[in-house]
C-alpha cells in the first residue's frame, strides 16, 4: 500500500484545525463519560472523573493544534513540490514527444534571450556600473561652452573657480599628452598620459597600489619631477615589481622618478597609463592668457551638496567672469557632467537604442513561440478535456501549461547564454575605440540574474495566452470534437493572426531603423575623404621636444624622408604634423590682410598643418589652384601659405584667394607676419568623414619643423609590406623615438567609421533576425490555416476552383496580414526614425528609398512565406479532403 495521500485533501484553515481538535477530544470525553455512566456513576460525576483522567485539557488542545498546523504546512509544501515535479516530468515528456516544436521554440527563444543578454551585459558594463571611486557621483568634469559651442579651459579658469566657487572640495586641471617613455634597456614607448594637479588622486579619493601619489606642492615650479604609472603599465613594463617605486625613467626626454602605481580601477582618465604633475609657468597664469585654452578640468563636489546645486554655483562663477572679462569670455558658461556621464556620453544613446532593438527581437521571438503554443494548444484540446474530466482544475491546467512554457524559456535562456558569450566576444572585437569602456563588460552575476528574470517573464508572457485559451475550453464540446481531430475556434485564429500582425509591425520598425542606419552608412562610405586612401601607408612618431631643436628636427625629417623614399616599393613620401581622420584638432586664429581686426571672441580659426613638398601628392590630394609647398619653401625664403577649398569658399567666396595674405596666431611670429596665399588644395576630412572639412592652412615643414610627425608613403604594391622597413628606419635614426599608429590609409578611413559601422552592423543583424522570425511566424500561421481548411479547399476544387485561384487565395491571406503589419509598423517606424535622426548622415528620418526597401523586403518575404502553404493548398485532392474526417 502506498502511504501518503492519493488524492489531495482540501487544505485546512487554522480555524478548521481547531475545530477538528475539539471534535476529536470531545469524542474521547463523550465516550469515556458514556462508559462511566454505564458502570453506575451519575453523568455529573462521570464527567468530573473523565476530565481528571484526561489531565490538562487546555494544554493538550494548544499543543495538538500547533502540531497539526505544522503538519498542514509541510503537507502544503509537499503537495506543491509534488505538483511541480509532476508538472515538470509531464512537461519534459510532452516536449520530448514533439522534438520539432521543442527545438524550434528553444532556438527561437535562445536567439531572443541570447541577444538580450549580450547587449544587456554591455549596457551593464558601460552604463550602469559606476566608476570605482568613492562617492563617484560627486566627481565631475567642468565643461565650458562659448556662444553655444563647446569650449575648453584656460589655466585661469581653475584660479577663478577656486576663488569664487563654494560648493566644491577642489579642482584640478587635466592636460592630455602622449608620452615618450624611455627606460633602461628598452625601445622607446609611446603611452597615453595626462598632466594633472597635485591634488588629483585625493580628489579621486583613491589609495595607491604601491608607493605613493602626489604630495602637495609637487605641481609647483622647482618641485622634484615625479610620476605615477598605471597598474597595466606596471605589469607590462616592470613585471609588477614593487621596486618600481623610486625608479628613474625618461618621459619626453626629462628624467622623472616613479613614486607610485594606480590600481586598474583607480586611474582616471580610464585610458591613461601615466600621470605627472602639471606645472604652470607664470606666463600662463595671468589675465592676458585667458584666450589660450587647451585644458580640461576635474572637480569634486562637496559631499553635502547636490551636483545640481554645484552646477548652479559654477555657472554663476562663469557669469561673473564674463562681466569681468567681457571681451574674451563673451557668452562663456560652465556646467558640470559627472565623470560617469562624461565618459559614456557618446555611446549612451546608441547603446540604449540597441537595447530597445533587442527587446523587439525578444518580443518577436515570444510572439512566435506563443503562436506555436496556440497551434499546439488546439491540437491538445482533447487531452486537456480528458484531464479536466479526470478532475484537474482549471488553475491546475494553467499551471501545468505555464510550467511547460517556463521550462521552454529556461532551456532557451541556457542556450542563449552560450550565444551571448560568443556574441559578446564577437561584438567586443569589433567595438570601436569610442566604446572603449566596453572592456568592462562581462557576463556577471547581475547579467545572469537579469537573464533568468527575462527567461521567466518571457515564459509567462508567451505561455499565458495559450494556457488561458485552453482553460476557457468547454469540456463536452471538446470531448465530442476531439474524436474528429483538429478543431479550431474562430477566436483562437484571430489571436494567432493578431500576433503575426504585431510581429510584422515590430519587424518593420526594426527594419526601418536598420535601413536608415545602413543607408546613412553607405552615404558616409561614399564621402570623398579628399585623398586617395588605397595604396598608402601611414605611421606616427613623436620627437622628444627637449632634445630636438629646429635644426635637429629639420635634419631628422629630411633623413626620414630620403630613407623612406629609398625603400623598395615606395613611390612618394610625405610628412605632416598631423594625419587626416585622426579626430584631433590644431586650430589657431588668423587675420586676413586688409580686413578689420575682429573682437577676440569673434576671431575665425583655422586648422594648421605643416607639410613637406610631397605630402599632397603622396596623399593623392589634388592642387586646385596655384601651387603646393615645394622645396623652394625653405628656411630664409619668403613664407607662402597653402589653403584648402573650405577656407577659400568660406573667406574668399568672391575674391581670388591667390591675391590674399594671412597672419596666423601661431608660431614665434604670432600675428605679425603676413603670409601670401600661394595655392589652394582639395579638402581633406581632418576629424571625421561625417564632419564638414574645417578651413585649413598648410605651411612648409622646412620653414617650421615640428616634433609631432606623421609620415605617408604611397606604395607601388601592397602598402602594408612597407611597415617593418619604415619602423627600422626610425629606429636607426633615433632609438628614443617611438613609432606608433602604423596603419594603411584605408584602415584609417575604416577605423574612423568604427562607431557607425559597429551600430549599423548590430542593428542590421537584429533586423535580419527579426525578419527571419516574423517570416517563420507568418509561414506557420498560413500553413496552419491551410491544414485547417483542407476540407473547404477540397469543396472549392470540387466546385471548379482552379489551382492558381486557390494559391492566389492563400497568398492573398498572407499579403493581407503583411499589409496590416506594414501599416502598424510604419507608424511605429516614424517615431524610431525621430530617435535615430541624430545618428543619420545625409539621410532624413523619412527617407523614401529606405521605406521603399522595407516595404519591398516585407512583401517578398510575405510571398515566400505564403508560397509553400499555397502550393500545398493548390494540390488538395477534393476526394481525399472531403473524406478526411
Amino acid at each position, binding site marked *: 500500500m502506498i502511504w501518503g495521500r492519493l488524492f489531495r485533501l482540501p487544505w485546512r484553515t487554522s480555524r478548521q484545525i481547531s475545530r477538528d481538535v475539539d*471534535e476529536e477530544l470531545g469524542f474521547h470525553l463523550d465516550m469515556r463519560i458514556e462508559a462511566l455512566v454505564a458502570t453506575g456513576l451519575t453523568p455529573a460525576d462521570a464527567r468530573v472523573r473523565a476530565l481528571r483522567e484526561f489531565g490538562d485539557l487546555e494544554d493538550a488542545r494548544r*499543543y495538538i493544534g500547533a502540531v497539526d498546523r505544522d503538519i498542514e504546512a509541510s503537507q502544503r509544501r509537499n503537495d506543491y513540490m509534488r505538483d511541480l515535479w509532476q508538472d515538470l516530468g509531464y512537461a519534459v515528456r510532452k516536449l520530448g514527444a514533439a522534438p520539432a516544436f521543442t527545438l524550434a521554440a528553444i532556438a527561437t527563444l535562445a536567439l531572443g534571450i541570447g541577444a538580450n543578454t549580450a547587449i544587456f551585459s554591455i549596457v551593464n558594463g558601460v552604463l550602469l556600473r559606476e566608476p570605482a571611486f568613492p562617492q563617484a557621483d560627486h566627481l565631475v568634469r567642468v565643461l565650458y561652452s562659448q556662444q553655444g559651442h563647446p569650449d575648453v579651459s584656460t589655466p585661469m579658469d581653475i584660479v577663478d573657480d577656486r576663488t569664487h566657487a563654494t560648493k566644491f572640495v577642489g579642482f584640478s586641471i587635466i592636460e592630455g599628452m602622449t608620452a615618450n617613455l624611455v627606460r633602461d634597456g628598452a625601445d622607446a614607448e609611446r603611452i597615453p598620459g595626462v598632466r594633472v594637479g597635485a591634488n588629483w588622486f585625493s580628489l579621486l579619493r583613491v589609495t595607491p597600489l604601491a608607493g605613493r601619489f602626489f604630495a602637495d606642492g609637487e605641481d609647483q615650479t622647482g618641485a622634484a619631477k615625479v610620476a605615477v604609472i598605471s597598474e597595466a603599465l606596471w605589469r607590462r613594463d616592470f613585471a609588477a615589481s614593487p621596486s618600481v617605486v623610486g625608479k628613474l625613467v625618461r618621459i619626453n626626454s626629462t628624467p622623472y622618478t616613479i613614486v607610485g602605481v594606480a590600481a586598474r580601477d583607480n586611474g582616471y582618465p580610464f585610458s591613461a597609463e601615466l600621470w605627472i604633475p602639471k606645472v604652470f609657468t607664470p606666463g600662463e597664469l595671468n589675465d592676458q592668457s585667458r584666450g589660450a585654452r587647451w585644458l580640461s578640468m576635474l572637480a569634486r563636489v562637496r559631499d553635502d551638496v547636490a551636483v545640481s546645486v554645484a552646477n548652479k554655483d559654477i555657472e554663476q562663477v562663469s557669469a561673473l567672469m564674463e562681466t569681468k572679462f567681457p571681451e574674451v569670455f563673451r557668452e562663456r558658461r560652465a556646467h558640470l557632467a559627472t565623470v560617469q556621464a562624461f565618459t559614456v556620453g557618446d555611446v549612451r544613446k546608441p547603446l540604449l537604442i540597441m537595447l530597445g532593438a533587442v527587446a523587439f527581437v525578444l518580443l518577436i521571438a515570444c510572439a512566435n513561440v506563443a503562436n506555436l503554443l496556440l497551434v499546439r494548444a488546439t491540437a491538445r484540446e482533447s487531452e486537456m478535456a480528458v484531464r479536466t474530466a479526470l478532475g484537474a482544475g482549471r488553475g491546475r491546467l494553467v499551471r501545468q501549461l505555464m510550467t511547460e512554457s517556463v521550462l521552454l524559456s529556461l532551456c532557451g535562456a541556457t542556450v542563449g547564454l552560450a550565444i551571448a558569450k560568443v556574441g559578446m566576444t564577437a561584438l567586443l572585437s569589433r567595438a570601436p575605440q569610442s566604446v572603449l569602456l566596453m572592456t568592462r563588460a562581462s557576463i556577471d552575476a547581475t547579467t545572469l540574474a537579469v537573464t533568468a528574470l527575462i527567461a521567466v517573464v518571457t515564459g509567462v508572457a508567451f505561455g499565458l495566452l495559450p494556457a488561458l485559451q485552453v482553460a476557457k475550453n468547454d469540456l463536452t464540446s471538446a470531448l465530442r470534437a476531439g474524436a474528429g481531430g483538429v478543431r479550431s475556434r474562430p477566436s483562437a485564429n484571430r489571436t494567432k493572426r493578431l500576433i503575426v500582425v504585431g510581429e510584422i509591425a515590430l519587424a518593420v520598425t526594426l527594419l526601418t531603423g536598420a535601413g536608415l542606419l545602413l543607408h546613412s552608412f553607405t552615404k558616409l562610405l561614399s564621402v570623398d575623404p579628399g585623398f586617395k586612401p588605397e595604396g598608402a601607408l601611414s605611421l606616427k612618431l613623436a620627437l622628444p621636444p627637449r632634445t630636438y631643436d629646429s635644426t635637429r628636427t629639420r635634419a631628422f625629417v629630411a633623413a626620414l624622408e630620403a630613407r623612406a623614399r629609398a625603400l623598395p616599393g615606395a613611390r612618394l613620401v610625405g610628412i605632416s604634423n598631423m594625419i587626416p581622420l585622426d579626430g584631433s584638432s590644431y586650430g589657431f586664429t588668423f587675420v586676413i590682410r586688409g580686413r578689420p581686426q575682429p573682437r577676440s571672441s569673434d576671431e575665425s580659426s583655422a586648422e594648421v598643418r605643416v607639410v613637406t613638398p610631397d605630402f599632397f601628392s603622396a596623399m593623392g590630394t589634388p592642387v586646385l589652384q596655384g601651387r603646393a609647398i615645394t622645396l623652394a619653401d625653405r628656411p630664409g625664403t619668403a613664407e607662402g601659405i597653402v589653403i584648402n577649398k573650405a577656407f577659400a569658399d568660406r573667406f574668399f567666396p568672391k575674391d581670388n584667394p591667390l591675391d590674399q595674405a594671412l597672419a596666423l596666431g601661431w608660431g614665434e611670429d604670432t600675428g605679425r607676419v603676413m603670409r601670401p596665399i600661394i595655392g589652394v588644395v582639395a579638402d581633406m576630412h581632418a576629424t571625421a568623414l561625417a564632419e564638414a572639412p574645417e578651413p585649413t592652412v598648410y605651411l612648409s615643414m622646412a620653414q617650421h619643423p615640428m616634433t609631432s610627425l606623421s609620415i605617408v608613403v604611397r606604395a607601388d604594391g601592397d602598402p602594408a609590406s612597407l611597415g617593418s622597413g619604415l619602423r627600422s628606419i626610425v629606429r636607426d635614426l633615433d632609438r628614443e623615438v617611438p613609432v606608433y599608429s602604423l596603419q594603411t590609409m584605408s584602415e584609417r578611413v575604416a577605423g574612423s567609421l568604427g562607431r557607425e559601422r559597429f551600430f549599423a552592423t548590430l542593428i542590421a543583424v537584429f533586423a535580419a533576425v527579426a525578419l527571419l522570425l516574423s517570416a517563420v511566424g507568418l509561414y506557420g500561421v498560413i500553413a496552419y490555416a491551410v491544414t485547417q481548411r483542407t476540407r473547404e479547399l477540397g469543396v472549392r476544387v470540387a466546385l471548379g476552383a482552379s489551382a492558381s485561384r486557390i494559391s492566389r487565395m492563400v497568398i492573398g491571406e498572407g499579403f493581407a496580414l503583411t499589409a496590416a503589419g506594414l501599416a502598424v509598423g510604419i507608424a511605429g517606424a516614424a517615431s524610431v526614425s525621430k530617435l535615430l535622426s541624430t545618428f543619420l548622415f545625409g539621410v532624413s528620418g523619412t527617407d523614401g528609398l529606405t521605406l521603399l526597401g522595407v516595404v519591398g523586403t516585407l512583401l517578398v518575404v510575405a510571398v515566400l512565406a505564403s508560397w509553400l502553404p499555397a502550393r500545398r493548398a493548390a494540390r488538395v485532392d477534393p476526394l481525399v479532403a472531403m473524406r478526411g474526417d
Partner: protein
Amino acid sequence: MELLQGTLDVLVLRTLAWEPMHGYAVSRSIHQRTEGVLEIEDAPLYKALHRLERAGFVAAEWGVSENKRRARYYSLTPAGRRQLKAEETAWRRYAEAVFKVLEPV
C-alpha cells in the same frame, strides 16, 4: 507508577500495530493491557499521537466509530512499523540489562 520518559510513544505504536483505531480506543487498550499499573493521563497520550503523526510514524484519517460518530482513526505507517521494531529491541535490551543486575545471582 510514573511513566518513564519516552515509554508512551512505544506503547502507542505497539497498540496501533494490531489495527487502526481512534484515540479513545488506544487509551482504553493501554489501560487494559497495563492492568492499571501505569498511571497514564489522556492528555499526553493525544499529544503523543499527534507528535507521532508529525514524525510520519502514524497516519490519521476521519472515520465513523462503532456508535456512528465521527472519530479520528490512527494507523501505523511503514516508517512507524520500523520505528516500533527499533524501539522494542532497545526496550528489551534495556530491560534485560536491568534484570541482569536485579536478579539474584
